[in-house]
């Protein structure tokens, strides 16, 4: 068990390291001069040279990389050009907003999608279920930036009942959460329906039914627990992805999270900030994925860590 966790941690660390290295190489190949965007339009050639020297941009690429790795190992991710602050601190300052939005969105998704999916499975192939199904397809076909702007137009412009941007009060979280959850509910509820449908038709359930187990018990004691793993895995994966920044929704609602930070860091070619963001978010996502894997045996006694999962 411990060895398994250690090995997984090692793998995760490697993944994150490779990701960050890839980003390091990518952004240095990119056109556009970070020194110029840092120094501003008024900068003289002398200023640019000084800025390059200050941030080590005048060094050859391998040297820059070694310095970068050394700094990263010592926990120094450099100073963000545009924020004039340690890049890591900037990301950490933004992170709570993204985790708050991700948590709220995943909770809403879970509480809406699971009952909906169960209902759809039990009412499979009725007219009402077909209607909900089509509504789900529609919800899953809307680009998030469009549904976001539409919600914003209705609830912040036409009927100004909710804030349109940022996070000044808790009510500011409502519209972004709904925008994210709309798509996720559509996806997850259809997954729940599929899993439940498969379980409700499985031979063991037929056998249980023939023993006289009530329909209610069939659903709650047999089908739902057996559908739980894929559904919880999906929820976990979605959550991990959201921690990488709900980029589009954050931009639509001017949400001060990591996603909108990324867009800005790319625009200003803020190398340290891009690296720090990738490091923090990739690390977090990998960690959440690890936790999901470790949680399997708790949910399903058939899974033994280190045995069934690996091999």
């Amino acid at each position, binding site marked *: 068990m411990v060895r398994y966790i250690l090995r997984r941690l090692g793998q995760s660390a490697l993944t994150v390291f490779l990701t960050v290295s890839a980003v390091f190489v990518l952004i240095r190949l990119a056109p556009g001069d970070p020194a110029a965007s840092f120094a501003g339009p008024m900068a003289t050639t002398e200023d640019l040279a000084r800025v390059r020297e200050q941030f080590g941009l005048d060094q050859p690429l391998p040297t820059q990389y070694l310095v970068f790795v050394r700094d990263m190992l010592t926990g120094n991710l450099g100073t963000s050009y545009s924020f004039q602050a340690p890049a890591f601190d900037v990301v950490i300052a933004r992170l709570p907003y993204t985790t708050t939005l991700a948590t709220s969105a995943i909770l809403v998704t879970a509480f809406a999608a699971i009952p909906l999916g169960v209902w759809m499975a039990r009412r499979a192939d009725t007219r009402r279920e077909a209607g909900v199904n089509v509504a789900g397809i529609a919800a899953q076909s809307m680009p998030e930036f469009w549904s976001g702007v539409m919600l914003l137009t209705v609830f912040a412009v036409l009927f100004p009942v909710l804030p349109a941007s940022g996070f000044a009060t808790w009510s500011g979280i409502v519209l972004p959460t709904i925008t994210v959850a709309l798509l996720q509910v559509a996806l997850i509820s259809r997954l729940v329906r599929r899993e439940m449908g498969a379980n409700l038709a499985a031979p063991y359930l037929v056998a249980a039914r023939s023993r006289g187990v009530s329909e209610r018990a069939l659903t709650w004691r047999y089908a739902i627990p057996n559908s739980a793993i894929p559904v919880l895995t999906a929820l976990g994966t979605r959550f991990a992805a959201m921690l990488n920044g709900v980029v589009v929704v954050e931009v639509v609602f001017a949400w001060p999270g990591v996603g909108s930070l990324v*867009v800005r860091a790319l625009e200003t070619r803020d190398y340290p900030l891009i690296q720090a963001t990738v490091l923090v978010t990739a690390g977090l996502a990998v960690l959440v994925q690890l936790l999901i894997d470790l949680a399997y045996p708790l949910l399903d006694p058939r899974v033994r860590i280190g045995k069934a999962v690996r091999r």
Partner: protein
Amino acid sequence: MTGATRPAANQPAAHTPGGRAARPSRVTAADLARSGAVRRGRAAAAKLWAGAVCTLLVVVPVALARVLPIPGPDEQHLDARRLPPLVDGHLFGTDQLGRDLLARVLNGGQVSLTIGLLAVVVSGIIGILAGAAAGYFGGWVDSVLSRLLEAQMSLPLLMMLLLVVALFGPSVPVITFVIAIAQWPEIARLTRSLVIVEREKPYVDAARVLGLGRVSVLVRHVLPNIVQRATLVVLLLLAQAVLLESALSYLGAGPERPFATWGRIISDGQDYVTTSWWLVTLPGLFIVLLVVGVNLIGDGLRDRSRRPKTPRTEAAA
């Protein structure tokens, strides 16, 4: 289409769907019509039809954009800025520069759809080849591919796409490539699992016994058997590609101006949400119509293939 699965209505003693000889049964035609399988079949057909209609409603006008009697997409009329829909012959109204919104949406659709199609073709080719190789050869090929897929799963995808667009510049080939890269894992994984099932079948052994090399078995026998199922998924990814492209455009990483893409039209229009609702709403509805259409088709096809396997002769229809 539905007729094929339904027994003739005026025959009280129902046929089984296969049309075998009638025998006495308590199951009436109405019962059959209400049964899950038939309902599913009918719903699947309805979905296919509705999906096709939605898709064509978008694709046909987009394809004919240059033929239709509408103004050019870049024709400016500064005295006719932000006209609401249906005013002065502008079906969708005009934008902030007095350009006809319908023309922009249709011409933008050409760019968006072209990128989507190209991306899907590229990712389809990469995904099917890589997935088939991994599934058929196994061993280190499989390990390398699986690690690659895992690595990509753990990456912050949109962030990486934005980064690559920033790197190589927002040109149409770059964006196509970027979307293809984002999508190939799904196809590769599916192809891999299909091939793993397929390679255990007797005909593969037979071909091997006949002296065919491993590569030619894969290319000439295995691939043709799975390519149809894989292509279906590839087509469904078209909707995702269009969504991804519009999201990139929205975030400012779309093809360079003067290309009007759906995402850019919406992001430009967002500056006017308080006064000109149509600038965002109508292009968005266009995207939704297309994606709903493609998704409905996909759903319908999946439902149909999931139907219980009764011995039916028309099943292949």
